């Protein structure tokens, strides 16, 4: 499987790996999800960056080399509204060739202005495709509605997003069944959203505030098998790997099918340059309790701490070209 997955990946994507960076806008969230550090019931330090602060964080990432950026936020209609997201995107476009979002699901009409502002991709993980497990881990907030979340990619496509990212949060349910469901979802999207580039992420549960333990742990070899199976099933689909996984495993997975990686990531708002520190506050059960603190709380711990330039050196040594820019902002402009 590994050999064939490697050969297919080479043929379709060549000896290149795209790099991207997540930029956390806000860790405010109204959902209660047992596994997530941002869960509403976690008493953590929270903040929402202003568009200016987002631009400052983005400048840091730009200096590191990134030209593809993923804006991430918890789900919060007040702090992370459609208008707020549109303003953040507009602040970065057209300097940034590729801007994607990973935020709470919205209506098609709410997405349109964000696309018009210059966003290219939308990422939304179903987390688990097993409805009973989904109900057990999502205990409050709009995220409890499985179908609303499942239909998000199609609403995003209708609004004009050109790259759609999906995935299951591995560790919540039997990974083989999740893999089958992800494959069925990809097949569905390829047929119904045929003009969109589909990417699949393979996030595995990491330690986070709340101390949730994965009910069905996924071993390294399982993750490798999942990546290979995904590649053999869909030779042309992008596979995204984050810094959740440790360096050794990341390096091993890259030749097997991964096409896009992050590097040097922070999973807390303000994590790159300390933006937003003056507005940090503790929330308990959704209520604000002001407190002194240095950093906002991260969504999860990262495992590969190598810097973007270190990662580029590693890729070169592995015989891959790190591709920082593989999109053009002008393509996103809506007439």
């Amino acid at each position, binding site marked *: 499987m590994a050999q064939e997955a490697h050969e297919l990946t080479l043929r379709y994507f060549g000896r290149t790996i795209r790099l991207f960076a997540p930029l956390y806008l806000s860790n405010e969230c109204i959902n209660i999800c047992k596994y997530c550090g941002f869960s509403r019931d976690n008493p953590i330090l929270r903040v929402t960056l202003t568009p200016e602060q987002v631009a400052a964080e983005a400048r840091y990432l730009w200096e590191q080399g990134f030209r593809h950026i993923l804006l991430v936020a918890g789900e919060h209609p007040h702090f992370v509204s459609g208008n707020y997201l549109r303003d953040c995107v507009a602040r970065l476009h057209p300097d940034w060739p590729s801007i994607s979002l990973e935020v709470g699901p919205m209506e098609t009409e709410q997405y349109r202005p964000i696309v018009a502002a210059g966003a290219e991709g939308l990422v939304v993980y179903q987390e688990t495709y097993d409805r009973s497990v989904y109900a057990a881990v999502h205990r409050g907030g709009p995220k409890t509605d499985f179908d609303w979340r499942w239909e998000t990619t199609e609403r995003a496509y209708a609004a004009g997003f050109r790259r759609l990212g999906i995935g299951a949060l591995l560790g919540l349910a039997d990974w083989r069944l999740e893999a089958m469901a992800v494959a069925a979802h990809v097949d569905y999207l390829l047929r119904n959203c045929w*003009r969109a580039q589909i990417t699949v992420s393979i996030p595995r549960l990491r330690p986070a505030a709340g101390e949730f333990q994965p009910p069905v742990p996924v071993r390294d070899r399982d993750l490798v098998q999942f990546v290979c199976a995904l590649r053999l099933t869909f030779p042309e689909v992008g596979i995204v790997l984050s810094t959740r996984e440790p360096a050794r495993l990341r390096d091993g997975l890259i030749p097997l099918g991964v096409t896009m990686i992050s590097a040097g990531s922070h999973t807390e708002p303000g994590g790159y340059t300390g933006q937003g520190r003056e507005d940090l506050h503790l929330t308990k059960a959704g209520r604000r309790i002001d407190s002194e603190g240095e950093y906002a709380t991260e969504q999860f711990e990262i495992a590969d701490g190598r810097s973007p330039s270190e990662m580029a050196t590693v890729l070169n040594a592995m015989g891959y070209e790190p591709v920082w820019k593989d999109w*053009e902002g002008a393509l996103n402009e809506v007439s």
Partner: protein
Amino acid sequence: MTDKPQRLRIANREFASRLIMGTGKFASGEVMAAAIEASGAEMVTVALRRADLTGKGDKFANILTFIDAKKYLLLPNTSGARTAEEACRLARLGREATGSTWLKLEIHPDPRYLLPDPIETLSAAATLVKEGFTVLPYINADPVLAKRLEDAGCATVMPLGSPIGSARGIETRASIEIILEQATVPVVVDAGLGAPSHAAEAMEMGADAVLVNTAIAVAADPVRMAGAFKGAVEAGRIAYEIGLTPKRRQAEATSPLTGFLT
């Protein structure tokens, strides 16, 4: 018949090489430059989305710095565009950034097989020709579309052999034969050529040139593979110019038994 192969003429330029190189999928800019050199190509296509179009010399988007503009004709391409409007916008930006008025027009709305959209391609070609671009459109092997694009003023047509990167060779042979038979502009077979023998086959059929990328870029030794394609393209062209011996059903002795009768 002279002993010197005919030169390729596209628009107002002549080329000794009939191999056009793509620049995607290489392990590094250095390997890409060495492979282009070894291929003998004189025309090189680059995806504008990979290049810095701001004019600020972005070192993180420096693919163009590996291509010697004095040595190679730069053929920017519009890969990533899904509509005529997007392709035209990208083409204009590319012209400003690179100074090249030559353009490989690629419009593939389907990111899975990257098959070209004939309707958008024809529309964009008409616009861009009027704006002074030398347009080389990537198309499915559709003979009617090829004629329509000629009528629109395109400098070539570039039918695909099989989907990009598929290495499946010339699966559209019957249609490419019709395009070749009817063409008044050069025909460049563009995609799916996975082996030097595929390139030679296209040239033997009478294609004016071929464009190769994946088969060279992902080879274990891209530089030597580029040389292999160079040889195949030259051999195929020479054979075409001489004329291949027709296929026969029966064997025919190289020293005919009845030779004494003549």
